[in-house]
């Protein structure tokens, strides 16, 4: 509306505080599409939340009443927290996700700097391998890595949960794109000032790459917090189970029909991610737009 207000002579619609009809229709259509999309994405979560405060008997009642008649949240949540080691699962999730992220950054940042800013003979080959690595699905390498871990007796450990993800070609690619746009002259000035290459990386490149690191951290943490596939492959005991796997074990142990408690558990393990994203939202969006990924 402000754009319309600055026009030299506002038309009838503007004077009435309305949008021009063609613009209004376009805006309404755009919002309609966004609302439908949001419904698709958000409805399961809404249902999860509603189920988590319903009585178990009410879950399968024929009536499709979205608002529960009776608040059963306290029972469901206390049941979820007391009947399963939910906090332990979440602790495992924190350990595994943090370690994976740390390892990914330790390996990817130097590799990305070298690929973006250093000239060496094998650079095209290495970069081609990185791109090739992006195309290999996780499931392809799962079996060989599983057998390797079995061979050294490291199954069902934190190490097994972290190993395949510690080196992320996606991270290398993302940071390489980001570093590529960093001015060469600053790096040259640093070399003249006496910085070593490693110091250029940690004192100049990394501080400038904070938005990209934040964006990658969100990608990495969500995907490994939510990952069920790999923990299911290498973990058997609840001691090392990550939240989704823990939920599965929990469901098997319990009667399997206490959906209220199950959804309460799901809500608890989803909450940290949602909160983290809300906190990092601005940095995350900036990182995405700056690296030109997605």
């Amino acid at each position, binding site marked *: 509306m402000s754009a319309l207000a600055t026009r030299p002579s506002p038309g009838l619609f503007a004077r009435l505080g309305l949008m021009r009809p063609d613009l209004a229709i376009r805006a309404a259509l755009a919002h309609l599409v966004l609302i439908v999309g949001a419904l698709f994405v958000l409805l399961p979560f809404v249902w999860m939340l509603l189920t988590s405060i319903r009585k178990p008997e009410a879950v399968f009642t024929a009536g499709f009443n979205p608002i529960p008649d009776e608040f059963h949240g306290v029972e469901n949540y206390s049941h979820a927290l007391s009947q399963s080691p939910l906090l332990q699962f979440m602790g495992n999730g924190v350990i595994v996700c943090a370690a994976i992220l740390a390892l990914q950054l330790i390996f990817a940042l130097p590799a990305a700097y070298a690929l973006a800013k250093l000239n060496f003979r094998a650079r095209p080959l290495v970069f081609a391998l990185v791109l090739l690595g992006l195309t290999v699905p996780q499931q392809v390498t799962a079996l060989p890595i599983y057998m390797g871990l079995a061979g050294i007796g490291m199954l069902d450990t934190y190490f097994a949960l972290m190993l395949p993800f510690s080196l992320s070609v996606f991270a290398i690619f993302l940071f390489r794109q980001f570093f590529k746009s960093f*001015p060469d*002259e*600053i790096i*040259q*000035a*640093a*070399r*003249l*000032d*006496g*910085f*070593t290459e490693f*110091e250029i990386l*940690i*004192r*100049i490149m990394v*501080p*400038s790459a904070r938005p990209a690191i934040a964006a990658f951290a969100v990608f990495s943490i969500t995907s490994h917090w939510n990952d069920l596939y790999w923990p299911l492959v290498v973990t058997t005991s609840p001691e090392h189970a990550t939240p989704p796997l823990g939920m599965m074990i929990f469901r098997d142990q319990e009667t399997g029909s206490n959906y209220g408690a199950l959804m309460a558990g799901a809500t608890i393990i989803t909450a940290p991610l949602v909160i983290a994203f809300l906190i990092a939202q601005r940095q995350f969006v900036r990182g995405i737009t700056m690296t030109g990924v997605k």
Partner: protein
Amino acid sequence: MASLSIDRVTKTFGHQAVLKDVSLDVRDGEFLTLVGASGCGKSTVLRVIAGLEPQDSGSILIGGGSVDHLRPKQRNVAMVFQSYALYPHMTVADNIAMPLVMQRLRLAERLPLLGRLSPRRGRVMAGVRGEVEAVARQLQIDQLLARKPAQLSGGQRQRVALGRAMVRHPQMFLMDEPLSNLDAKLRVHMRAELTELHRRLGSTFIYVTHDQVEAMTMSDRVALMDEGRIVQLGTPNDLYHDPLDLRVARFIGSPGVNVLPGRVSASGAVEVSGVTLPVEIEAEEGTSVAVGLRPETLSLDAHAGHPRLAARLHSVENLGAEVFLRLILEAGPSEPVILRTALESYERSRHHGSLDGVIQVSLDARRATIFDAEGRRIARRPVEAAVVRLSVSAE
């Protein structure tokens, strides 16, 4: 402070030869400018001197010793970049301090947390802080030490970049178009300031620019580069009045030199636009030449012995003290030639109505420069002979 020798340096990027056999000697304390159009290789010369790009062949000597095997930081040269290249997340004080910190602290002492364990770190950093403040005061940026580069204007960033270069007292300053990101007024101001800085520090300055005005006004000597070679090296006066190559004549001077096609006559004189220039050059009869005439070699007033060209007025540029006239020669190329004259002379001519219709423009042939078809300067016969002929033709 040191002299510099560049000895037959070549450099190729891919298949592109950027430097083709560049040799250059710079005296201790000299202000030498490398000037040329973009892509002529002048910035590459600086990068090779600094050690940021290794040359393919040839060698670089600083203070008489070869530095070819030394890393950039060991060469003890400071560079100021066009984009200033300040560290974006560091304060002005940290930016200026960095070269000293890197020089004086050992690698382990520079580590983020571990470094603080070293007992001498605090002492070194206090010394660095003092020197940073001294340099900042010299450059009048001591009020800005706590700011980040993004909060500074272009001129202030420029000063910070200079401060970072000055703080470690390098043997030599390398400047890569440091003024071209500034607005016109500030550029003129910084030009004077850089000249003053050079005088005060007494260090060797190697200055790269594509702006011939900067080259002419600041330098002791100028090297004009084109296509990876130094075309001419000399004082600003040499390059302006005595260009050895048509490319030099064209590049130096504003407004540019007038270039007219000419032909060598039987006696070795040059015919141009229907008149014969009373010069004698060492070329065969019938040779096509290019005659370079600076705008001030043309005049509205008649002078004895100066041939006259018929022209019509095309347009006038009045700068106040002096006036540039664009003239179309009656017998000559269709693009205008430029004449520079004092305001009084222009006003007088206009008052007499002599600017209407055909104007007679006199030409000072002694100051004309003549080039062959390849653009190389053609030497004149010994001066006495030319003077004799000149006096003969005057009668």
